[in-house]
């Protein structure tokens, strides 16, 4: 068993998962001495009727004092400051965040301001700026991918300075993450596919990257096994509560895993494609994951071999010769992408050149690849990647992922 010389594991969130898990929220809030929460969400979640389901799960002990349902997709400082004022004006004592990554990050930002009685969120950016426990925060994810409901990170845009602010602290981990499959039942198949592949990328990178540890690896394997078993069936039959619960659980497990083991080049490049071309994060992760595995293959053969079991199942594992298992694990992710591509009638893209916006226009152009590669070099996750990466390496991987071509592994400079 591989144990690093030093590692830490922390996941303070109280994870509650089940078919009627929302019903636990009143008890959770009461146990934390809160009874007047603010509810933060976005228009899509609200229109889908998910807020109504949550409201019906509350009882007499809880009075929602304020509902903020206009969090934008890339939440920014202005939104966070406005919601913090709303929280204080309505004398709330806790936050329930129901939504995807943007909503949950916004709620974390609001919680910083209202707990620290501060009026400048920027002052708390970076790592370790928080020294105290924050107000009770309950996270209810409505996508099964980001894992934000269990992580200690929040990202808030600062449009005035053209940057994204990163906030990291154990105190940002929500007090409870409530996973209820009713919250993801209405996700369309292609979003289900992309978000699950995001979760898969968290789990796989948690296993292969430099800060891996035995607990994060075990959680990641649990997550991958669930994604393998349930992703395709759910994409084919979206209203399957058991499958939805399994995928949402997998996303939380993967979130715990990568929160303690960090991520590598798949996220390095994925963040940059998202930043330059505004491609949805899950789509980037799905395309880049097999390339990240292939690029690092010579450094992580043991980890890739072990990953084959949860990625492919025991039959494929048993009939693959040991020396072929690392490559088979990479192939398995590609097969998964291809199966999702067919199941979503081609909406789930398997190469960058095929990603289009709502109007059918390509979102990634070949001439943008150099800019993406340059941007990637400034991403912090690059330090946790097993193999070194420079500009030329990033560009090589991006070009292959753009075309959907196999990575020319002879060009990888093994450090």
């Amino acid at each position, binding site marked *: 068993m591989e144990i690093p010389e030093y590692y830490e*594991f922390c996941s*303070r969130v109280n994870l509650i998962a*089940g078919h009627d*898990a929302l019903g636990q929220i009143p008890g959770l809030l009461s*146990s934390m001495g809160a009874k007047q929460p603010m509810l933060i969400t976005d228009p899509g979640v609200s229109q889908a009727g998910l807020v109504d389901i949550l409201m019906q799960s509350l009882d007499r002990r809880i009075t929602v004092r304020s509902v903020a349902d206009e969090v934008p997709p890339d939440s920014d400082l202005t939104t966070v400051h406005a919601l913090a004022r709303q929280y204080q004006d309505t004398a709330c004592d806790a936050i329930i965040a129901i939504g995807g990554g943007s909503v949950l990050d916004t709620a974390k930002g609001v919680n910083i301001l209202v707990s620290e009685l501060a009026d400048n969120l920027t002052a708390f950016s970076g790592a370790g700026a928080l020294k105290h426990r924050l107000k009770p925060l309950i996270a209810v994810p409505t996508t099964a991918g980001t894992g934000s409901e269990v992580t200690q990170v929040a990202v808030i845009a600062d449009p005035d300075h053209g940057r994204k602010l990163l906030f990291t602290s154990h105190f940002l981990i929500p007090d409870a993450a409530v996973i209820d499959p009713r919250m993801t039942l209405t996700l369309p198949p292609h979003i289900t596919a992309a978000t699950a592949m995001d979760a898969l990328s968290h789990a796989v990178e948690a296993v292969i990257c430099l800060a891996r540890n035995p607990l994060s690896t*075990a959680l990641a394997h649990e997550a991958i096994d669930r994604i393998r078993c349930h992703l395709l069936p759910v994409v084919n039959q979206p209203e399957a509560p058991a499958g939805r619960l399994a995928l949402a659980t997998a996303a939380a497990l993967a979130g715990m895993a990568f929160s303690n083991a960090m991520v590598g080049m798949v996220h390095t490049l994925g963040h940059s494609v998202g930043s330059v071309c505004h491609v949805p994060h899950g789509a980037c992760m799905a395309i880049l994951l097999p390339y990240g595995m292939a690029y690092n293959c010579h450094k992580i053969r043991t980890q890739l071999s072990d990953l084959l079991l949860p990625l492919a199942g025991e039959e494929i594992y048993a009939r693959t010769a040991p020396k072929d298992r690392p490559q088979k694990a990479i192939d398995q992710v590609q097969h998964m992408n291809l199966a999702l591509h067919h199941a979503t009638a081609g909406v789930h893209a398997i190469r960058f050149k095929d990603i289009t916006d709502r109007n059918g226009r390509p979102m990634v152009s070949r001439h943008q690849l150099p800019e993406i590669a340059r941007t990637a070099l400034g991403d912090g996750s690059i330090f946790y990647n097993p193999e070194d990466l420079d500009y030329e390496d990033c560009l090589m991987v991006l070009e292959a992922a753009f075309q959907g071509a196999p990575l020319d592994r002879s060009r990888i400079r093994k450090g």
Partner: protein
Amino acid sequence: LPDFEEHTMTDFFCFTCRCNIAFGTGALYHLPFDLSGMNVCKPFVITGPRAVDAGLHLDLASAFRETDTALGIATLTDDLFPEIREIETLYQLFVDKGHDGILALGEGPVVQAAKVLNLAVCLGPEMLRPDADSQKINAPLMPMAVIPTGPSDGRETDITTVSSSQRFISEFLMPDRVVITTDTMLGAPENLVLTAGWSCLAVFCNAFVFSANPLISAFAATGIRLLTDTLPVLVKHPGHDELRCQKAQKKRRLPLARLTHAAALAGVIRANSPGQKTAHGADAESGPNPIQALIHHLETGIPAPSRLGDLLLPLTDPARYTAVPGPRRPEAAIQALQQLVKDLSCTMRQEDAHGNT
């Protein structure tokens, strides 16, 4: 045998681990930074005579030498759970000196005493009385870190503590941090080492087989792998001449730290299985050899638990697991467990004979 509800559905589960587990070389030297992150400037250290005799309190103090943190160190009279009067004295000391966090350096009794002290400083000295209101714990307590000095019963990460006549259970009794490092491992007699090992193995195997909670499965699988790697090393290098008031021999410190790590994981599993009995009808920590009792129950249980076959995976490796056909895995898992027990017992007898010669 009592009824045991086998959980085969994952329709509902919950899991919490408030504790940050830090493991490894130099982990002690991360502690000042972590305490500062919790706004702790003046921690109160509780330790026991054995740790002091081995100079561990000095090692701890040296980790804080370059910082602004002021440590107060109190040593319990002996290595057993103290009289309430002694905790009252600690309470007064804590309050008078204005401490703002608690460090427990030692084994079970030291950790228990630190938790009871934490209740008193946060909720009032009346928590030390026999009629203390155990329902009163509904908010986080004072920041607390535990630095174990050897494998024990997992008390460092669980959610209980016991004072003179009261048993308290609350998630807030789980410390904020457990620091497991080779630097603080004390010598340990083999019977204690093996008792801790068997106890943890029983907790892990029981949890893995009977719980469908994926987080418990992950923690249990990690614990089983830690033990299957570590116990053979410890048994092969028994510390016959080790004194419990001295640091463990150098070659044994890392496996002892790993066993301590396993014990911490067992504590987290217990914390998330409230009231759950083991399959053989008792707490896994009780009895002379809980793993034998568990094996016996798994052998005779009809029908075999559905996850018994999966236990083969953490007990062996993916290649051996997949080489055994599914229907034969329950039997193979029991055999692997029996073989482990047999190998360890044999090695131990051989080493004993060698030592006697």
